[in-house]
Every structure is written in C-alpha cells, then in structure tokens.
C-alpha cells in the first residue's frame, strides 16, 4: 500500500469513519488509556520538559548535519560488511529489494513492522515474484495481512479498528478453531509464525534509529518478532527513512526511552536491540546485510519551513491526544500516516493535490504539539500548510487575515469587546432559528444558527451554534450581579 490509502474523497471517508461506531469507541478507549499511561511514565522519569529539550536537540542536530551523518553511518555499515543503497523514490527502493530476493534466491520472507516498507508498498512488490511467501510477523500487521492487506489505522496500534470477533474470523481462514479470547488467538499466531521464522531465508525490518558512530541499527519492539527476523534468516534488509540517524548509541538510548514512554507508556519496550551483519565467528544473524536509505519526498522538507517534521520519532502520541483523530480514526485521513503527524507529513511527501485536505483536519487545539516528545510544533506547521496552499493556489487569504485581525482587535480592546457583547444578541436576530423549548434544545432556546457566515460556517455545517445571550443574561452580567449580591 503506498502512502495514499484511498481514492475516495475526504468527505466520503469522513462519512464512512463517522458511521464506524466500533472504531470510534475503540479509539476513544485507547486514547484515554494511553493518556494515563503516558502521563505517569513521563512523570516517573522526572524533568520531562528537559528531556524533551534534549530529544529535540538530538533530532535537530542530526537533521542539520544529515548528509554528514549518513556518510558516517554508511561507511560504518560497509566496514562491518553490509551494503547500503540510497533510494530517491519508493520505486527505486522496492525494485532494489526485489532484486536482492531474486539474486539471492530467497523464497521465504519474514518481516517485522515497518511504516517505511508500507510506504514503498514492498509486500506487494515481493509477492509479484513467483514462488515467494511473505509473512508479516508483528501480530497486528499479521492480522492486517491475513485480512487482505487491510490498511492500518494507527502508526503504533495498526489494528485499533478491529474487534476480537473480526480477528477470530480472519484467523479462521487460516485454520484457527479456538475462541475469540485475545490470549488464545495470540498463541495461535505465535505457533503459526514460529514455523515461518524457522524456514525464512530473508528478513526485512524497519529501523527506529541508525547509529552513525558504528553502523548499527536500533530497533524497538514489544513482541520480539523483529529480533527473530534479525537472528534467523541469512539475509536481512533494513529499510529506513533517511532522517532516522543518531550520533551514537547514547542518543539512541535517550530517544528509545522517550519513544517507549510516549508511544505505549512504558519505561522501555520489551526489546531494544542494536544490530548489524553477523561477525564471521557468530553463529546466527544475517550473513548478507543490506540497508536501504529512503528519501521519497523527505528532502522536500529540508531547509524549509517544514523541516521540523523530520524530527519525528513515530511515537504516535500526537494521534493519541488528537480530538479529530478520535472521531475519524486513521482511515479518515486516507494516508498511511494519519493524525497530526500525518496531516503535516503527507503533504510534504506527496504534495497538496493528494493531501491538501489534511491540514484542515485539525481543530488547531495544539494538544499534539504539547505532547510531542521532540517538540515538533505540529499545529503551527498545519497553519503554515494552509497559508502555503492559499498562496500556491493563488487563493486570497486576505479575507481570513482581515477577519482574524478584526477578532484579535475586538477581543484585545476592552471597550470594543464590551460593545460587541452589547450588540451581538440583537445583531444575530435575523440569522437564527427558534423552536419551542424542549429537552434537546434546552441550551438553545434563545435561538440558534443553522447557517452561520464566514469562519463559523464549518461549525454550523455539522452542529448548531447557540445564539449569543441577551446582554443582561450573559456571563459577565451574571457574574457581576452575583458578586454584588454576595457583597450585600
């Protein structure tokens, strides 16, 4: 599956997501649970703001000297006997890996979870070859694969949109006869995949961080599948976005703990591994080791106003706090990178024609920026996308600017603000609808907008907007009287 996951329009995707009540409940439950775990694991570390500063510094430093770090890293991989391929596009990367499978006559391929391999549609490319088997070994990715490569809905929890009954049905297609108990289904997957691991002759992994000082790959997982992919097959291919460098293993360790705390609320993931090609006297591990370093649009961000998006460590925390993601889930975005990070990154990688809707899929509440462990100002980057689009599409944003300027002035100047409160009720009379008071419109019985003008239109397209109260009934008047009464 390439970056774009759907040909449907944004509004159609939203309608479908809105109708998927299980998904919405699952996302809400996951967000709430993760909120508690993430917060407590950050508190337990202590000095979280200073850790964020360090995380940001590491990532910004690497991006600033990216060609130098890539050079150092690739030299060190080669010194260990590995091969490095620099791919400018998804097609270059997937064709190169396909060729490795042909040249080495590899027939049984196992993979561990990797967003970048999804980005380059690698599974399909490898399965084009005759007589090849390929198995995703991460439990969630395995479920998606067995469900005809269904699209992931979250970058850390790809199967969030599936319930246990659906998973049971998927597994029944491959011989499962047990119940819908998660533990029992996981044991079935363990047994099923173990056989594939043992016969695998090629392993494919992603890369959390690539260590420039010694050419090792740092991978973190909870299941242990990536370690089996790195131990058993004689050939390993690592696919990584070009920005995933760290200077030394020390910085990798810093980011690993920030990633684990931000992604799943753990102090460390169950497994964090640093690996390279097997040394000549070691027994297992890959004899043939390839690293594919991918640009695929990332360089569009370099040196420009979206450069900070390259700091991302794919923890998914921004998805887990996003109110828009809570309602539309991953599929609503139509990109393999959903949520706030996806809304910023997808247009950088593939442009506004494909992903121009996404920067508007945000309430700009800023929760994403606040939680990001490497301090990416996501909501500010979304605003920048909107401005760039307006400029590129030669749209006139002077109206928006004027309105925002006007609102800024009115709310920032007490006499003007008071005057607005005096007249807003009267001036809105012509645009509001009145119904007889009922339980449902209890808070709207003053009347409500169904088609508000200008910037409020987006709100009234899907919700009612209560009419401003009369001057004597508004909060300020009420508070003033309340204070006077209590002084009396």
């Amino acid at each position, binding site marked *: 599956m390439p970056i774009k996951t759907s040909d449907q329009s944004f509004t159609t995707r939203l309608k479908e997501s809105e109708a998927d009540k299980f998904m919405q409940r699952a996302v809400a439950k996951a967000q709430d649970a993760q909120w508690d775990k993430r917060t407590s694991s950050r508190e337990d570390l202590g000095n979280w703001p200073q850790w964020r500063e360090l995380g940001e510094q590491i990532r910004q430093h690497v991006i600033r000297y990216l060609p130098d770090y890539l050079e150092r890293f690739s030299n060190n991989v080669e010194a260990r006997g590995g091969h490095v391929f620099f791919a400018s596009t998804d097609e270059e990367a997937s064709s190169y890996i396909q060729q490795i499978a042909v040249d080495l006559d590899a027939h049984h391929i196992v993979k561990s979870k990797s967003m970048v391999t999804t980005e380059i549609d690698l599974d399909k490319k490898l399965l084009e070859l005759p007589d090849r088997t390929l198995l995703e070994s991460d439990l969630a990715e395995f479920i998606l694969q067995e469900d005809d490569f269904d699209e992931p809905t979250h970058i850390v929890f790809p199967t969030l949109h599936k319930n246990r009954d659906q998973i049971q049905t998927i597994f029944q297609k491959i011989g499962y006869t047990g119940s819908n108990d998660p533990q029992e289904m996981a044991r079935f997957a363990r047994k099923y995949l173990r056989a594939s691991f043992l016969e695998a002759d090629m392993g494919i992994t992603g890369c959390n961080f690539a260590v420039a000082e010694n050419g090792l790959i740092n991978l973190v997982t909870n299941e242990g599948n990536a*370690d089996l992919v790195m131990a058993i097959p004689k050939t390993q291919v690592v696919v990584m976005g070009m920005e995933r460098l760290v200077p030394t293993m020390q910085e990798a360790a810093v980011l690993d703990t920030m990633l684990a705390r931000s992604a799943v609320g753990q102090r460390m993931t169950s497994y964090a591994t640093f690996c390279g090609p097997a040394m000549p006297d070691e027994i297992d591990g890959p004899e043939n080791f390839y690293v594919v370093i991918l640009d695929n649009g990332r360089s569009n961000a370099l040196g420009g106003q979206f450069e900070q998006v390259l700091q991302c460590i794919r923890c998914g925390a921004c998805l887990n706090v996003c109110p828009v993601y809570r309602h539309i889930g991953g599929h609503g975005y139509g990109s393999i990178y959903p949520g706030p990070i996806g809304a910023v990154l997808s247009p950088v990688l593939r442009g506004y024609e494909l992903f121009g809707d996404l920067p508007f899929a945000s309430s700009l509440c800023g929760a994403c920026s606040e939680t990001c462990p490497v301090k990416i100002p996501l909501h500010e980057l979304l605003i920048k996308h909107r401005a760039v689009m307006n400029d590129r599409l030669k749209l006139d944003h002077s109206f928006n600017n004027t309105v925002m300027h006007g609102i800024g002035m009115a709310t920032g100047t007490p006499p003007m603000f008071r005057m607005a409160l005096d007249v807003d009720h009267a001036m809105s009379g012509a645009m509001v609808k009145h119904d007889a008071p009922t339980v449902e419109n209890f808070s709207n019985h003053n009347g409500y907008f169904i088609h508000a003008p200008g910037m409020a239109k987006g709100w009234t397209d899907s919700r009612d907007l209560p009419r401003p109260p009369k001057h004597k009934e508004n909060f300020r008047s009420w508070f003033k009287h309340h204070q006077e009464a209590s002084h009396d």
Partner: protein
Amino acid sequence: MTEREVFLNHLAEASGRPRHQLVDHPFIPINSLPQTTLSDLSADELLNLAQTRSEALQVEFHLTSQKKLPQVLNVWLKAQQAQNILLPTDPRLSEYGLDQWLAHLTPTPRFWQPNAGRATNLDAASHADAAISVGDYLLAESGTLTVATTRGQGRAFHFLPTHYLSIIPRSHVVPRSYQAMKAYRHALQNGTLQTSNINFISGPSNSGDIEMVLIVGVHGPLTVSYVVIDDA
C-alpha cells in the same frame, strides 16, 4: 559520481547547508540528564529499584549468593518442568561456580555451541523449554537486562526458548541505560568486545494488538526471570 554522492549532494543543496561541517560541530548535549538521573542512589536503593521495576514487568526476580545459585536454578528448572534445557558456552558459568552443578544437571542440557553450525544451534534454541543465559548489566530504572551476542551465546538464544532466565552479578546493576551504553561503547572502541548485536530485554514479550488487551508472551519467551548474584 556514486549514487551515494548524488544523493548526499542533493540533500546538502536542498537544505542550503554545505556538507562536511560536522567535524567542527560535534553533538554536545544540552543537559546531562541521561547520566545524572538516578545516579545518586546507594547500592541497596539501586538493587531495590531494580527489583521493583523488574517485578512490575512480571519478571520473577531472585537475589542469591553464589553458593545458593545452583539451588535457585534447580527450583526454577523444576517449576518450568524443563525437559529441554539450553545453556551458553561461556566462561562466566565457571566464574559463578556452576561447574559442579553442570556436571550433575538432569536432563542433560544442550549448549549453544560456537563450533556447531547455525542449523544445530537454532534447533537447540527452538526446542528449548528453558534457557539460562549470562547477562551483562541490569538497568534499575527500567528492569532491563542487557546482553551482547557472543560466539557462545547467539541472538536467537534469548528469543526462541519458551522460558528464560538470566544471571547477572550484583556489581553490574546500574542506574539506567547510560551506564551500560558507556561500558559497551568503551569495550567496542577498545576491542575488548566484538559483537554485531546488543539486546536490551525488559521482561517477557507482550502485545496489546487485540483490543488493547495485554497479552504476555507473543514471539519471545513466555516468562522471564532474573537472578542477581550478590557479589558485593
């Protein structure tokens, strides 16, 4: 020009920053939290923390003397009803005084053998229902065991067996990853350690991929135990 040079030059051009500036601008961290965090704990506090944090991961944690080590291992093996035992070929087993115990161990264990091939060793690991490894460090902060791959203790040693136990000397319980990383980097740089792989293992494998329900034991071992030898 090689494909790498074209690629890297393109990045330099796109960013508007010339290449080869790193030598004059090495990375200098803005704070020292990685090394100062938990560094003020006493040895006892460190051990207590290691135990609490390990147990929070559902790790069975034992502190024992070298003398009682064989007994602890026997009890553990019995609890796992181990029929196929896997051990490393590693001089540390002798250093921990286990030669006698090994000589009488039943059922007869299999070893990860430096001179046997990949297939033999993977077969031993995949059939093992209990593996006993020798660990390098234990990180108190996160209850994490670290192990570097050696000829006598391969990568799959830690992942294929059903139940897994690791022995770590108390003097190697350190505050957090910083201290272990420092030691590994030093050993790699001066050549006292030659390895292609270092594992940080924090408890048994797990997943929340089905309705976010925590499942313990997915691809790696179903249970994990740490035995700390009190060598202080």
